């Protein structure tokens, strides 16, 4: 297998794992934290697809701003998802 293909595969696996973890987490704070990892990996994927504008937007908005806004919202409301 080529090196580049292997790198892409590992990145896609990372994306899928973080997405599943963010959806299935009961602790909402954990879900937000994992979702910020998802945004970071997604920005890396955009850059590997040669779309640096999108990578910049994803890194700035997805990983930076929305994570903190989500955390503020969780602190103001409730942390655990109800069963």
């Amino acid at each position: 297998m080529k090196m580049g293909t292997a790198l892409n595969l590992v990145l896609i696996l990372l994306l899928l794992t973080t997405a599943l973890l963010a959806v299935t987490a009961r602790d909402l704070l954990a879900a937000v934290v994992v979702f910020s990892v998802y945004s970071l990996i997604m920005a890396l994927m955009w850059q590997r697809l040669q779309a640096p504008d999108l990578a910049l937007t994803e890194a700035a908005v997805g990983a930076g701003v929305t994570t903190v806004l989500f955390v503020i919202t969780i602190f103001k409301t409730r942390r655990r998802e109800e069963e």
Partner: protein
Amino acid sequence: MDRFLTAVALVISVNAFICLYRAAVGPTTQDRVLGVNIVGTKTLVVVVLVTYILAENYFLDVAIVYALLLFVVTVALSRYLEAEGWKEVP
């Protein structure tokens, strides 16, 4: 050289995958934030490597934004946890 750089990027991404364990499982929230910081640093390095693999030097702006925003996220999250945390339920 490109193959070597891709191999380095591959090893670092596998490392990031393993570090994700700490971000996903970590008993306390601070552990998770630490895991995010580590995964983010590794992704930043992979961004720099991908810049030189693709030989498009202006992609370095993305790496700078990464470094700035990682600092913002980690410090802001730990400050919120420090100021108004709950009792930790691991």
